[in-house]
């Protein structure tokens, strides 16, 4: 068991080329904050990318930031904040150790993903070493580029199974001046999702839309939410002061909203939603993406078979499912069947005991095309074997 810590691109290439030559698979890690998601890596050795760290270029006016893959997300966040900017896809805060490379490799996005796009939509370019042990780059360092295949899209969400990222280029955007969160109390799941759809169909530029059933709402550390004593439905408005105030009034009228959150309360609530921390910690956790209107139907189908709690983000399209008693497959068959019946989507095993993660496909089973893509980048299966179930 060896842990490799390359400090530059060339060392990274040498290590992977060595692993290729010796047929020794590697698990790629940054801060390790997402190691509990999906399936277990089958590699004996570890490739730790945290030394590939540092912001290498940042020009706020160009909306572009370049960083080593091992750069802590928190460091990037601070730098952006100092210039009034942000990563618009809202990476869920999973702890102080998480790196930008890990966020991109997992394509993990938060509540604003609904309207601002995912990590993949803000990932402009990269330099990496493939599972062949070869350095390659793709994309560019400008916000608008269609030169060559869009390999950044493929790399985002590939969980390190295609290449080890060395450098990433990100699109950054202005941080909103003002935020308001409009709250509705006591709506059932279906009513809530319908209200979220009305909000998103309105011209008031809702950026995030979530629904917390009563049990989840009660766990919030935001007083207004926890004290509601009922389900809480939340819509976030962001932008320039006069605009947000106007839209907030209009949206409250449109939906008959009971309450609104400002500043810090709003921030805390959306972080709680982003990390699904309003659901019990000790349960098997699934992250399910379906058409927004299908969210309640998926939840109802799972609730008929299993003891479950839910949390809805993305206007109903992202359903977090926490299972108390999940059975031998962690509820996989029931959850995936519910997704299929609701018109399709995908389910990821987000948190579960290792025994379960070893037994159940944590991601959607790979198609033959996906396997051919894997071979195109990593023919010998050196990088993160097993991580995505193959």
């Amino acid at each position, binding site marked *: 068991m060896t842990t490799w810590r390359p400090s530059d691109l060339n060392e990274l290439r040498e290590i992977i080329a060595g692993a290729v030559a010796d047929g020794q698979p590697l698990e790629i890690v940054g801060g390790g904050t997402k190691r509990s998601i999906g399936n277990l890596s089958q590699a004996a050795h570890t490739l730790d990318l945290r030394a590939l760290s540092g912001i290498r270029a940042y020009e706020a006016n160009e909306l572009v930031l370049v960083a080593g893959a091992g750069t802590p997300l928190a460091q990037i966040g601070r730098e952006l904040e100092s210039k009034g900017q942000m990563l618009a896809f809202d990476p869920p805060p999973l702890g102080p150790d998480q790196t930008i490379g890990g966020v991109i490799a997992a394509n993990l996005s938060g509540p604003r993903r609904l309207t601002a796009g995912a990590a993949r939509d803000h990932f402009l370019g990269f330099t990496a070493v493939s599972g062949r042990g070869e350095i390659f*780059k793709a994309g560019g360092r400008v916000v608008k580029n269609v030169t060559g295949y869009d390999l950044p899209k493929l790399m985002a969400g590939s969980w390190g199974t295609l290449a080890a990222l060395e450098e990433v280029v990100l699109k950054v955007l202005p941080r909103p001046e003002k935020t308001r969160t409009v709250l509705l109390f006591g709506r059932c799941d279906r009513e809530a999702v319908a209200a979220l759809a009305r909000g998103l169909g309105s011209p008031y530029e809702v950026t995030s839309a979530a629904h917390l059933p009563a049990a989840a709402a009660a766990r919030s550390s935001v007083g207004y939410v926890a004290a509601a004593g009922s389900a809480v439905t939340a819509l976030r408005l962001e932008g320039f002061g006069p605009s947000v105030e106007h839209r907030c009034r209009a949206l409250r009228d449109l939906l008959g909203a009971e309450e609104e959150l400002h500043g810090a309360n709003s921030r805390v609530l959306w972080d709680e939603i982003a990390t699904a921390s309003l659901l019990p910690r000790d349960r098997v956790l699934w992250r399910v993406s379906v058409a927004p209107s299908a969210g309640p139907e998926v939840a109802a189908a799972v609730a008929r078979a299993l003891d479950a709690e839910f949390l809805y983000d993305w206007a109903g399209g992202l359903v977090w499912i926490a299972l108390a008693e999940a059975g031998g497959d962690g509820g996989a068959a029931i959850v995936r069947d519910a997704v299929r019946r609701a018109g399709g989507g995908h389910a990821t095993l987000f948190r579960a005991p290792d025994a379960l993660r070893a037994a159940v496909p944590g991601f959607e089973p790979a198609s033959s095309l996906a396997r051919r893509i894997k071979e195109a980048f990593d023919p010998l299966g050196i990088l993160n074997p097993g991580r995505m179930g193959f």
Partner: protein
Amino acid sequence: MRMPPSDAAVLARRAAIIEGLRALVPGEGVIVEPRELRAYETDGLTAYRQIPLAVVLPSTTAEVAAVLRFCRDEKVKVVPRGAGTSLSGGALPLADGIVLGLGKFNRILEIDVANRCAVVQPGVTNLGITHAVQHLGFYYAPDPSSQIACTIGGNIAENSGGVHCLKYGLTTNNVLGVEFVTIDGEVIRVGGKHLDAGGYDILGTITGSEGLLGVVTEVTVRILPKPPGARALLVGFPSNESAGDCVAEIIGAGIIPGGMEMMDRPAIHAAEDFVHAGYPRDVEALLIVELDGCEPEIDHLIGRVEAIARRNGAVSLRVSNSEEERLAFWAGRKAAFPAVGRISPDYYCMDGTIPRRALPYVLSRMREMSERYGLRVANVFHAGDGNLHPLILYDANNPGELERAEAFGSDILRLCVEVGGVLTGEHGVGVEKRDLMGTMFSEEDLKQQQRLKCAFDPEGLLNPGKVFPELHRCAELGRMHVHRGKLPHPELPRF
């Protein structure tokens, strides 16, 4: 233009191939008459022409699959085509290949307001989607200038942009799902009404792949509520530098306008002479800044942008006070291409992107090149995202002038890469910029891209001759060179 050598065996079997295709796509769906084939010999890049072996116009996904499978078995190359508006020669035919036209896939299949998406066939025009949903208060955001004609299938192939993409994204940021067919005839659905991929992002990979990976047969796009209003500022500057500084300060202030377009003096004059939009003639650069949203937001931002513009030396400034006035501001910009077409027999439109800070340098270098090549150039510029559209003026009837315009264009694109930019912001590589790929990418970069191609199309039958300057066999690309003894420190224990 150098294209892959024709397969003599395929040319010799033309009659049998046509017969085979006719068995798969009935009646007028297979076009073989030279007179009719001529309609397909070129696309928006009209300098290159080639009559294809045949044109096939299927009307169902099953027919597309059958045709592709047949072409794979018969080793016939396939050039997919939407409306043929590509400015990079993406749909340029091959003598030994068929053109697969998706024009019959022209139906809107579903409008789903609750999920804010529309499911359409790939031959629906870009503007057709907006027309289908606007009565519900929605629109489809990406707006390439050819939107009245170009198809959503073509938009996906090229990852098309438009004037509003700084704020609303390119095609890839607005597509939720596709059904596509591989060269093997396999029908694959990725994405849908839900967000993100459950595995590799094949949707994001297909988008912008220029017809080299598969043929799209159904599309799900995101639709957005139409902003309640929009107003524009028309601002003149005494230099490109001051206009560029103004753009940088607007973005630095946290304002992402719905549209932000810049024109240089030659483009301003050509446009004003043509449509009399009321543009000032005595400025070096003109900026159109459009702000959309609710009324309080527009009012607030107009004030802020106006202050920034004045601080940066604006010599003329108008704010639209009516919808007519806003459209008048745009009329000149939207007519810039035909306006330049009026003052020159031919023009050649380039499409590089640069970091915006390099704009003054790039424009001054371009002026030097213009003198050296003896050809005029006018610039329109998606200022917010650094996407430059130099229009090179030439006359194809003068011997050698097309070649000079192309050489000039290549120099401009090399310059874009030199300053940290890219070869193409929204028009695609196609045949046009294919041979410049090496200025931006290493041999290894390009080989890795082609290995991805091998995962979809190992025989290289889909749109060959586009994007990649050199074609390698997949077997050669897949070969691994593993020599333990040649590693840098073979003596060190590694695992």
